[in-house]
């Protein structure tokens, strides 16, 4: 599927560029996106190193296991195929907690660590496993308690009430979050019935 999505984006893009006569601009955009990707990775890299270093300490000192044991009753419902008290649970919890608190740049490293743990349980290393997709469903539709970025954006646009949207954002985001989890669960169950 991803092959088609990726090719589709490129091909329809190039088709429209040819039809609309902005081929030059589109090519330039492709090149600048490629260098932007490198800059973005450099930015992520520092934070990844910092949090991966912290996580290694947490792992070896047993903190990860303590946390995993604490939350395993809840997490087991969301990730039924992950063995109880697996260290993946602690990374998942830190990932969700960081998302909730709006610490986006800490959420990613925790999430990636969780992916790493889940990959060790994955029978097909090039294919997404069910718990991985659940984790991604949680992250793409993340619940935000405090949309700091939007608030500062509203403030700079001269809003009389920059925080007026907090309640609505929380609610909309929770609905998206619950919907994502329910849909993920429905598809997972259907695939299980088909014997995958």
């Amino acid at each position: 599927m991803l092959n088609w999505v990726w090719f589709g984006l490129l091909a329809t893009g190039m088709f429209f560029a040819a039809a609309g006569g902005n081929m030059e601009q589109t090519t330039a955009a492709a090149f600048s996106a490629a260098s932007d990707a490198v800059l973005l990775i450099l930015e992520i890299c520092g934070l990844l190193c910092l949090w991966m270093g912290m996580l290694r300490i947490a792992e070896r000192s047993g903190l990860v296991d303590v946390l995993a044991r604490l939350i395993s009753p809840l997490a087991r419902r969301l990730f039924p195929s992950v063995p109880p008290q697996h260290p993946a649970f602690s990374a998942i919890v830190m990932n969700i907690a960081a998302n909730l608190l709006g610490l986006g740049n800490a959420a990613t490293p925790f999430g990636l660590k969780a992916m790493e743990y889940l990959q060790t349980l994955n029978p097909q290393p090039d294919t997404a496993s069910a718990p991985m997709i659940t984790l991604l469903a949680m992250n793409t539709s993340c619940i935000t308690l405090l949309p700091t970025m939007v608030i500062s954006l509203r403030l700079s646009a001269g809003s009389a009430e920059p925080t007026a949207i907090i309640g609505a954002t929380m609610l909309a985001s929770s609905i998206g979050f619950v919907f994502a989890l329910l849909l993920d669960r429905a598809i997972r169950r259907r695939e299980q019935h088909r014997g995958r």
Partner: protein
Amino acid sequence: MLRQLSLFMVPLLLVGIPLYGVLKKQPVYELFVEGAAEGVQMALQILPYLLAMLVAISVFRASGAFQALAGLLTPLTDALGIPAAVLPLALMRSFSGSGALAMAADILQQEGPDSFTGLLASVLQGSTDTTFYILAVYFGAVGIKKYRYALTVGLAADAASFLSSFIICLLLFSG
């Protein structure tokens, strides 16, 4: 309260984790460096996945295909009474985080942050994350190439957040 918690959370973790390690008699510095080295590897591992996605998305945007897609969906949103300015933002939200942020800023400037359109754009921007980016980074980090139904779930959830943002804003702000 929440802001205070966010403020103290990071320093607490940065001191608390090594403190726990020291109490457990672990070589904290050595472990940190070891883990950090893994961070470098992971970042390099993600790069090709992220680059592939960002290039395809930027071609789609710069060529005018994105506006065409938005144009295609306009009758649908018009029928529901969703402000025309918000639709491109809702679509962009799934594709590009920086693109959506720029669009949201533009809407707030043009329509006013406290107008219905401005409020809806704010809620929309804050209530979901960039699906394509998250998928590329998370799957890239562990070398997953076949996403199965992950994209379907992500995009369907984006659509659900968009519709619920609109309904919630209608209930709360138009009246």
